[in-house]
């Protein structure tokens, strides 16, 4: 690994901006484009420079790029003979085999609508995905399965890292201020369980605030969201967040 990095940490880059020259061992990313020994950014994003390597975190993008092993939340789009087509906000439709959810082989002619209907939400892992096949989902482990309670909202997949914040700072602020439980999935879907609808509305407002947010620094965003929630729910909940 040798070469020169031309960008600073947290710098905003455009497509075509020269990031580095030389030979770097960086994981494959659709957001970095290499020509001969020059590395260019391929999207509008923020550069993370760490320990002599770099990554580009996109600031734009309404599509999720599936990664094997990711746990995603999707909506059932269609029911097929032996499984479901699930919208996971990727350029490709995902397929969930019924045997994976039911943990047994499916008998021919079985009505799968009884287990998952069109419009239902499902949490599943991306089991298989590459250039030639559409993503195949699997229900494995306790944190996956049909979503039976709470509310599902969405944000641009490129904004999920901002919603979570550095070391989960923004997400923890949101949860401690409202008492809601939030699960953020990498495809931009958010599952929340709130004590009441007032908190739910506050979270929804905060999420749309993050969605239209243009600032590139997360610390400022956390402060903005903190003020927003405080104005919505009153100051009583703010003190509890100070301890958290």
């Amino acid at each position: 690994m040798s070469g020169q990095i031309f960008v600073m940490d947290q710098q905003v880059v455009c497509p075509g901006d020269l990031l580095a020259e030389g030979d770097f061992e960086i994981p494959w990313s659709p957001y970095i484009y290499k020509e001969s020994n020059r590395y260019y950014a391929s999207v509008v994003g923020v550069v993370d420079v760490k320990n002599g390597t770099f990554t580009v975190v996109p600031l734009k993008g309404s599509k999720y790029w599936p990664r094997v092993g990711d746990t995603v939340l999707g909506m059932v789009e269609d029911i097929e003979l032996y499984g479901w087509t699930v919208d996971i906000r990727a350029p490709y439709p995902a397929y969930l085999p019924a045997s994976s959810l039911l943990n047994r082989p499916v008998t021919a002619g079985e009505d799968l609508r009884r287990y998952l209907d069109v419009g239902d939400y499902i949490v599943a892992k991306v089991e298989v995905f590459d250039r030639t096949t559409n993503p195949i989902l699997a229900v494995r482990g306790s944190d996956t399965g049909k979503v039976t309670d709470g509310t599902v909202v969405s944000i641009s997949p490129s904004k999920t890292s901002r919603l979570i914040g550095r070391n989960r700072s923004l997400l923890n602020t949101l949860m401690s201020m409202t008492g809601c439980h939030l699960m953020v999935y990498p495809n931009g879907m958010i599952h929340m369980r709130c004590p009441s609808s007032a908190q739910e509305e506050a979270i929804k407002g905060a999420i749309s605030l993050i969605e239209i947010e243009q600032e590139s620094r997360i610390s400022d965003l956390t402060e903005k969201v903190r003020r927003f929630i405080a104005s919505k729910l009153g100051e009583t909940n703010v003190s509890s967040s100070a301890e958290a």
Partner: protein
Amino acid sequence: MLAAQQRPRLIDERGLRTDGRRPDELRPIRIELGVLKNADGSAIFEMGNTKVIAAVYGPKEMHPRHMALPDRTVLRVRYHMTPFSTDERKNPAPSRREIELSKVIREALESAILTELFPRATIDVFMEVLQADAGTRLVSLMAASMALADAGIPMRDLIAGVAVGKADEVLVLDLNEAEDMWGGADMPIAMMPSLNKVVLFQLNGTMTPEELRQALELAKKGIAEIYQLEKKAIKEKFVEVS
């Protein structure tokens, strides 16, 4: 209206053009991203009186399925002039010229977008010319390029382009309507500036080899200027506040 006019003097005695520009001067440029709510990405690009809005959808599943390509994204591009974009109403049906320009713009975009990242999928690009005053193909192409950046679609570089022509035997940058109509040559050229690659190159009229060389240099200078404005327009949306 213009057709009925007599051929005007394109360069006056002070060496200035009909709109008061120097021969190597660009028209004023305004770029705005994210102007449409429903599209995945959008942009308005204005260059003088030429005004184009572009919208991008995708990458998404390709329908009909048999049209999809196994190794890359299919780009569907539509360049269209609105009926009110010209001084006399333009028939909104796609003309021969619009179909051809759609193809030329598609090929330019195909060389910029990393199409191999999304096999079997499709990206739709729509461009509407709101106001036409020469150079609509390049302004459309640049609007599309900005809309693609707004949509977060990976590409090799932003596209910047400008036309160089001959007005009264003088090489001029960024033609306006009068120079386009009465001038001796019109050469639109678009590039990916940081990779130094040409994505669109056409020439109407005649130029000597020496004129062509000079025209290329002039175009490169204009493109570098536009490229900086494009980057500024994108980065302005993400100001760091301290």
